[in-house]
């Protein structure tokens, strides 16, 4: 039974993922609270994307339990659990836009799939405001993905992820490959959309600035598990060597400094 008011939007319990003899996850536990932006970090190969795929049902874990709004995602085929699927939007790393469709058509794909009775005018209007909402220029509508820059592809991907007005948004490294200005703009967009639309966001990132700027809590994947989950000060208090190195390395310090500077300016 789907419970949209559940204070825990996503519940991951004891998830085990293996590829052949290689273990990626060994008992991952994670809660994503309703209405928060949860950042997921971890070194390369710690299975951040695999965790995302386990939650959205693209990969069935070897063991464990995943529920989204109280509905179990285990043992569901890709065409099952439609009720849950239309309540989330996913932005894949490269945007994953359908290359034979224009941006506007890409946004309309989920709408047509779930609501075939919508008339074309309304579809066009919806696609139009989603294009602007995602921060794309109005002339981007009839363009094909191959004509877009990396940043615009991500925004178009975001517009498609938001097509069905989801409650849950999964973002896989949204700022990877963007220049700092573009990355910052994307962060602000995510934050403001999350606030206005009341979204719960599951965000995989390597970008320390993103973590500081928009995440309510951060989960750290290491040693095949979530070793810590909380606000950044809480994480630092755990004293785990990887977390220390991650946040207190040269890049971590730079990001902290920026945040402090911004706070002072704001104050």
């Amino acid at each position, binding site marked *: 039974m789907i419970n949209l008011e559940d204070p825990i939007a996503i519940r991951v319990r004891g998830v085990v993922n293996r590829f052949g003899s290689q273990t990626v996850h060994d008992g991952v536990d994670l809660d994503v609270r309703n209405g928060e932006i949860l950042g997921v970090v971890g070194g390369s190969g710690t299975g951040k994307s695999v965790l995302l795929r386990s939650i959205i049902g693209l990969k069935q874990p070897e063991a464990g339990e995943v529920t989204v709004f109280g509905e179990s995602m285990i043992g569901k085929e890709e065409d099952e659990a439609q009720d849950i699927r*239309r309540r989330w939007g996913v932005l894949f790393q490269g945007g994953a836009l359908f*290359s034979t469709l*224009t941006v*506007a058509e890409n946004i309309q794909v989920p*709408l047509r799939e779930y*609501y075939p*009775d*919508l*008339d074309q*005018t*309304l579809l*066009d*209007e*919806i*696609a*139009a*405001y*989603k*294009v*602007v*909402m995602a921060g794309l220029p*109005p*002339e981007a*509508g*009839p363009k094909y993905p*191959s004509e877009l820059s990396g940043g615009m592809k991500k925004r178009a991907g975001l517009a498609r992820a938001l097509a*069905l*007005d989801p409650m849950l948004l999964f973002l896989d490294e949204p700022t990877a490959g963007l220049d700092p200005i573009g990355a910052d703009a994307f962060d602000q967009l995510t934050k403001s959309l999350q606030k*206005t*639309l*009341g979204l719960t966001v599951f965000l995989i990132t390597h970008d320390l600035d993103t973590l500081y700027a928009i995440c309510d809590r951060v989960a750290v994947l290491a040693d095949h598990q979530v070793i810590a989950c909380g606000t950044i000060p809480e994480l630092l208090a755990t004293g785990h060597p990887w977390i220390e190195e991650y946040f207190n390395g040269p890049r971590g310090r730079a990001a902290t400094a920026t945040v402090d500077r911004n706070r002072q300016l704001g104050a």
Partner: protein
Amino acid sequence: MTEMADFTEEMTDGGWVIRFSGRLTLARIGNLHKRLDALEGPPSVIDMAAVERVDTVGAWIVHRLEHDHGATIINASDDAKRLIALVTRSDRQVQMRPEPINPILRVLDEIGEAVTEAGRTLLGLLSFFGSILVAVGSTIRHPSRFRVQAVIQRLDLVGIRALGIVGLMSFLIGIVIAQQGAVQLAQFGAESLTVNLIGRITTRELGVLMTAIMVAGRSGSAFAAQLGTMKLTEEIDAMRTIGVSPIEALVLPRLLAAVFMMPLLGFFSTLISIIGGGLFCWLSLDMPPVIYVRRLQEVIPLTDVWVGLVKAPVFGLIIAMTGCYQGMQVKGNAEEVGLKTTAAVVQAIFLVIVLDAFFAVFFTKIGWT
């Protein structure tokens, strides 16, 4: 079941009032949009008191109404206000479709495009051939740059590994020619001439031609896909910056392998076709293998073998060249790799057949009939 989005209209002193009710969300919107187009009068007030929930689609519909008729919204929840503000900010003229083009112009445009494309491809192939010759020249001057290992690997892939499929295909084609030929020739009582048919057609034409088609499908496509993928992943650019010529390192080994292997494969194919035909003659026409071989010796002039073998390396060159050329033309996205691979195979087979026709006329003229 929650209620569908709905509305009522009411005439008051202040003009028409629209009262929305239910959930103004995508899932419950139904045909609300169309019904709102057929309002009795222009609304001046939009009452959202009875609305349970709103999403951006509901907010959009309210916003359109407000915007089109200059209505005022009352009793909106904070959520609704926030979302309406969001869609109002996002309301800009967005182009949805590419500009439509006049169909006549489009046909003309496409014809022109195809002609220039064909011309460009021919020119491109010619200049590619030129750069190959340059690479051959520089390899001859610096023999140490010649990549023996790569060539051997390609020989294996293009030649040895094709033996099975080329053999099977040739064997079946030999049987088919023999069988079809025997049926037709039997009408003149000239079944024994089946041997002439099998022997001459396979040595002169079919052995090499069918092999070329198979190699184009097997190796030409592989060349295009390999080089195309390397182009996408910038491996070829990386080679250039390191100072390695991609033509020398990638194209020459493939070219040599195809040129060298085509005659061998062609000859092999001819042989197997003849064996296939012979088997049919033996089983169906009661012609013992000894007689079959003796008849073959009588009817096939040696020039027929030369006709087949002279063509083979040229076909190999064409196949490898179009494959590598198309592979190098890939740019942009993964879809291009597929398109260029198809183009490579189609062009290779087409050019092979055109050249084969020229060869046929040429050999007849010089008396190798």
